[in-house]
């Protein structure tokens, strides 16, 4: 590896980083450390966008990005590394182009893959620290364990609606993600941003906190968020801090470790073997089937279990009872009729179907993939959201 003295800055770089260089906390040495640093961003989405932009602008020499997704219109509300013209392109290509546009000195390493137990250790090997900008529990536990096992700090950030969390895990003697949360929630219990929504600026706020922590770790300055969980409430605009402790019983970083290599994280998070809503469960109805039955004039009662503000965006003219009100309002439904339940993507309606079946409704179907699938496959005039 090149020594710090080899990371000379040319005159263009000196001008570019002048606002860093005149601060003693960064200075020439700090800027050389940034140039030498190799940071891996897992995900080029909501969190990855702002943090990759700032790390690139700050002069981090090597930025790795792991992503396999394609830019979608619904990403643009928060994923500011991508632009409207990038819709349909690989996020990796779009992000790399934006980064190079901001700072051509950055060496961008693209990993077009899903991070898995098979490739994580190898991908992490060439980086000094990892920034977790992922969007699911399985990858978060994978990033955590791979960081702990390879001795690399994990700059963590997570968001939901108006609320965010940030911390630095896996630092020497510091707690890890498993010390905070030994296990993930079972699938379906916690709503995702795709169903629950997220305020567009929130990943900006939290991603920039992650970028700040990454830069502090590289510079070796300030007080990193090690052993502290920062909670951000954008609605109240309140920042709170909780103390985190290293759990002596932690299976990956505690005193009696039971995890010495990466495991099957899909299984750990209860995902594998579980069919995705769009693939259908028994008793599910596809959008095509529903269309055919409605066109044939069959007597179907369409129940929409989304929230009223979602109904305003688009609807199938169904009877609206939000999932959380269903137990109190079940008397509005006729158990003798055939009922098709839908939500946005099929998750909430599956719960509603289970509830109705437990309560004496025998002829109930879940619309597989929800109104989203209906919009994609039956009626393109229905907006997707």
């Amino acid at each position, binding site marked *: 590896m090149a020594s710090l003295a080899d990371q000379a800055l040319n005159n263009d770089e000196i001008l570019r980083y002048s606002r860093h260089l005149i601060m003693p906390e960064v200075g020439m040495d700090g800027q050389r450390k940034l140039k030498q640093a190799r940071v891996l961003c897992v995900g080029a989405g909501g969190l990855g966008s702002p943090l990759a932009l700032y790390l690139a602008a700050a002069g981090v020499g090597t930025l790795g990005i792991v992503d396999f997704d394609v830019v979608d219109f619904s990403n643009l509300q928060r994923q500011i590394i991508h632009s409207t013209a990038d819709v349909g392109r690989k996020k990796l290509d779009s992000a790399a182009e934006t980064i190079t546009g901001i700072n051509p000195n950055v060496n961008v390493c693209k990993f077009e893959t899903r991070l898995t137990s098979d490739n994580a250790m190898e991908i992490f090997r060439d980086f000094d620290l990892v920034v977790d900008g992922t969007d699911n529990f399985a990858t978060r536990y994978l990033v955590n364990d791979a960081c702990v096992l390879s001795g690399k700090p994990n700059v963590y950030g997570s968001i*939901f609606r108006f609320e965010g969390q940030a911390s630095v895990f896996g630092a020497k003697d510091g707690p890890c993600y498993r010390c905070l949360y030994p296990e993930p929630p079972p699938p379906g219990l916690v709503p995702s941003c795709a169903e629950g929504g997220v305020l567009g600026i929130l990943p900006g706020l939290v991603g920039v906190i992650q970028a700040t922590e990454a830069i502090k770790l590289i510079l070796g300055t300030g007080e990193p968020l090690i052993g502290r969980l920062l*909670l951000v409430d954008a609605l109240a605009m309140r920042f709170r801090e*909780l103390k985190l402790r290293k759990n002596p019983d932690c299976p990956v970083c505690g005193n009696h470790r039971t995890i010495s290599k990466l495991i099957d994280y899909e299984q750990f998070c209860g995902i594998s073997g579980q069919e995705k809503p769009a693939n259908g469960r028994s008793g599910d109805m596809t959008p095509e089937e529903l269309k055919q039955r409605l066109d044939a004039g069959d007597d179907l009662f369409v129940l929409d279990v989304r929230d009223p503000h979602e109904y305003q965006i688009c609807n199938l003219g169904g009877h609206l009872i939000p999932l*959380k009100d269903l137990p109190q309002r079940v008397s509005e439904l006729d158990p003798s009729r055939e009922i098709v339940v839908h939500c946005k993507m099929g998750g909430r309606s599956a719960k509603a179907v289970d509830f109705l079946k437990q309560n004496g409704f025998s002829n109930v179907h879940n619309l597989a993939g929800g109104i989203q699938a209906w919009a994609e496959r039956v009626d393109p005039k229905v907006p997707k959201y």
Partner: protein
Amino acid sequence: MKILIPTPLQSYAGGQSAVEVPASTVGEAVQALLSSHPELRKHLYNEQGRLRAFVNLYLNEDDVRYLQHEQTPVADGDTLSIVPSIAGGRS
């Protein structure tokens, strides 16, 4: 004392972000919350009645796991935070 309800659980607590409850321990505070919002129970406790592994309770800044768990005494001015894990985009 005050209990702070995180965004993902607010819909099970009448949309409130904070509730005041009378209590002398963490356990009493949670029970008071659950008696007025029974729907919250399955999100906080598993079938065996144990606090779920992806939900933490903090008395002020401290994780009650490192205090006296649900037996931790509380005072009027204390704040109990419910802090569940959140993942982001997909679930």
